[in-house]
């Protein structure tokens, strides 16, 4: 257990060094957030009287800012080092070490998601709470209970996104370059996690499917607890959904890793 903790800690400390990149990333995200808030404000202003959207404008604005603050949790790319290992064959060393490769890779994946989020989250939140006009601001959580459940749900989201990232790394054992699949998946994750449009605003038919996919558990579900669109009563079901997907993807990942390693051929002398 301590070995896995050590991987996680060491890699987070390493990734925290990239502060300049984080600064530029933050500026981009703030800009994106501002555009999105303005576009959605305009959409809400066009609602015909009597028609109601599934969330209020205030909730949507808060949802958008949470998305920018926690964007780092999106299961997009995998870490370059893990990909490089598989491409160059040094993955063989990884197998000789006295640990379970699956959990080691999960920890790598977790550090890749946690470190950038740690760097970016707070400044973006401060900006979105303090420096914007009232109508564009990140609002407070719906209730103290919502705040607590949100925190719990974010932790589960970290677990879920790490497991998805680990799974992406494992698929590299087959695809080697993996770029095509990675690009496609990261683009889909963008839409399916609610960054492009908050999922409750999607057409109902699409929404009922997308809500049940694992990507919703990485960002959308925690946000909905925060804004109170999912009440404390229903939150248990949401948290269970996150746990369920995490467990299912752990099993899938372990199985794929085992069969991938069986057919692994490492060249060189």
């Amino acid at each position, binding site marked *: 257990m301590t070995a896995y903790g050590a991987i996680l800690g060491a890699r987070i400390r390493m990734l925290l060094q990239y502060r300049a990149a984080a600064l*530029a990333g933050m500026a*981009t995200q703030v800009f*994106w957030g501002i*555009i999105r808030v303005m576009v959605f404000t305009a959409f809400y202003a*066009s*609602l015909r009287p009597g028609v109601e*959207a599934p969330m209020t404008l205030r909730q949507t604005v808060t949802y958008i800012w949470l998305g920018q603050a926690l964007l780092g949790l999106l299961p997009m790319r995998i870490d370059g080092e893990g990909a490089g290992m598989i491409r160059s064959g040094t993955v063989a060393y990884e197998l000789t070490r006295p640990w379970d490769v699956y959990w080691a890779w999960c920890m790598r994946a977790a550090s890749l998601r946690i470190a950038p989020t740690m760097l970016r989250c707070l400044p973006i939140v401060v900006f979105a709470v303090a420096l914007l006009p009232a109508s564009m601001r990140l609002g407070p959580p719906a209730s103290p209970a919502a705040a607590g459940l949100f925190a719990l749900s974010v932790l589960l989201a970290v677990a879920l996104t790490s497991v998805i990232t680990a799974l992406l790394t494992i698929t590299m054992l087959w695809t080697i370059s993996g770029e*095509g699949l990675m690009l496609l998946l990261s*683009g889909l994750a963008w839409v399916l996690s609610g960054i492009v*449009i908050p999922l409750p605003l999607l057409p109902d038919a699409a929404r009922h499917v997308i809500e049940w996919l694992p990507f919703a558990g990485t960002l959308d579900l925690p946000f909905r607890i925060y804004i109170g669109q999912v009440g404390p009563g229903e939150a248990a079901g949401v948290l269970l959904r996150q746990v369920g997907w995490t467990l299912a993807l752990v099993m899938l990942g372990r199985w794929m890793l085992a069969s991938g390693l069986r057919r692994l051929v490492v060249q060189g002398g």
Partner: protein
Amino acid sequence: MLNAMRLYGKYVGVSIRGQMQYRASYLLQLVNHLVLTATEILAIWALFARFGSLRGWSLAEVALFYGLVNLVFSITETSMRGFDICERLVKAGDFDRILLRPRTTVLQLMGYEVRLTRLGRTLQAVMVLTWAITSLNLAWTIDRIGLFLAAVIGGVCLFNGIFLLQATMTFWTIETLELMSIITNGSVETAQVPMAIYQPWFRRFFTYVVPLGCVSYFPVVGVLGRPDPLGSTPLFQWLSPLAGVIFMLLALQAWRVGVRHYTSTGS
């Protein structure tokens, strides 16, 4: 001039043949891009299905804004790759080689690599524009077509200018400022919807500092022939794409100053 164009044609030919060596990877990237942008377009459609309109702008009208800026950006991206990676040339000292050749730096960088993968965005933009034009039921008179083409040309000039400025800065900073992506990609994001919906300070920045509105919003309003909520006159709508051309000419001047300032790095 003729000689320069022939040389540019050669550059394009070489880089296309080079990329065609990796046909599978090229096709995969193209398909990827189409799938991703298709989801983006579906997302916009979904919002219109939910809210009805965007402050009085219909989906077809917004599609015209969306298609125009994506078309313009894809044309720029295809040809300006050399400026995009100018940082690498400067960092490695490779820019020396470009200075040694008896052709202008701008021509050589424009021909550095013509990226075919960007054709995915062009294709998508053309499809969106086609859909917008057929569902808008506008009479495509000569002056409408003229104004639209002026917007395309002005837009390509503006984005060329932005890429030029981004590259120029690397002569001093050695590194591409990540922040510039706010101006490049951010401009595309901004101009995909009518700028009238944004707050005044934001609009002012994208009209007077980076004249993005002048090559997308104002001419498109003119093409649509609807009264502008911002109150621009038809004369202004016709003149505004010139701002893109002027922006590029200024950027070219900055580039010349930058090249003169260049001191080689590398060893």
